[in-house]
């Protein structure tokens, strides 16, 4: 049986994932903006480099981030319903029914979460390779000052992306442990 505390932790984790998905999407938009500022002959290289190293185009990453946000909004909503049955001390039957619904909502993530984790970890690996690429950019395209600023921001973003992947792994295990009936 899943405890009230388990569900409270799950709700808290869902909120972090939702924020992470929004940040991921914003990060991709910022990346798109920075690519748009590059000369026309540089853009296709950067875009191809991004897609081939992260496995998806910017557009696909934004769609994935949005899917993740929507899925975890639903998981959070259903978790809150489970929590209500505990708080209101409703019958075990009500709690089981709410848990069953939560499990059903979470199933696409339980089934495919490992791919999401793999993709996000791959994204972090790509980010780690970016400073080397930025350093290679000719000064006519990217001023030293801009290079420095971009490179400085990367370690923090790598950590955020890795944290998101680790959190998803924890939640996936947590959701898989919830009994289906």
């Amino acid at each position, binding site marked *: 049986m899943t405890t009230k505390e388990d569900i409270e932790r799950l709700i808290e984790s869902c909120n972090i994932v939702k924020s992470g998905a929004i940040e991921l999407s914003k990060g991709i938009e910022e990346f798109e903006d920075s690519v748009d500022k590059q000369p026309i002959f540089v853009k296709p290289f950067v875009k191809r480099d991004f897609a*081939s190293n992260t496995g998806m185009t910017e557009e696909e990453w934004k769609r*994935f981030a949005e899917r993740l946000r929507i899925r975890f909004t639903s998981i959070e909503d259903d978790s809150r319903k489970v929590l209500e049955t505990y708080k209101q001390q409703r019958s075990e039957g009500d709690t089981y029914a709410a848990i069953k619904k939560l499990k059903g909502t979470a199933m696409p993530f339980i089934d*495919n979460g490992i*791919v999401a984790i793999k*993709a996000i970890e791959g994204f972090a690996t790509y980010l780690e390779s970016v400073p080397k690429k930025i350093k290679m950019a*000719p000064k*006519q395209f990217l001023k030293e000052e801009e290079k420095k600023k971009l490179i400085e921001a990367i370690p923090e973003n790598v950590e955020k992306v890795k944290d998101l992947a680790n959190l998803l792994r924890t939640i996936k295990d947590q959701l898989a442990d919830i009994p289906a009936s």
Partner: protein
Amino acid sequence: MFKSIESFFSNVESVGKPIEIGDVVLIPISTAFFGAGGGGGGGGEQANNGFGFGLGASKSLAALVIVTKDKPGTEGVHIHEFKNGKTGVGEALVEALPKMFEMWQMRGESPLSNEEREKLMNI
């Protein structure tokens, strides 16, 4: 439209060898500039006359024709014209291309299969 194309190509000195990178082909277009200059000088009683004349020609990268292979017709052709045929941009390009090749080679196989991408879109 045709007039501007005609005017653009009337200045073309040479069309460079196409550079193929993945599905993009870059064709450098160069123009030539000719310059002449003269100078003279004269002194007073102790004449110290001088005269000079010079001719020069230089080639400058004026534009890049960018052809994207998988885009049909004119949609796949873009002309990027460098204002005043700036040598700086030309130099930047010369500097950039080998680096782009290097960056290009840094990529590995796509880390996600089509099936995995589809799963992510339905998560």
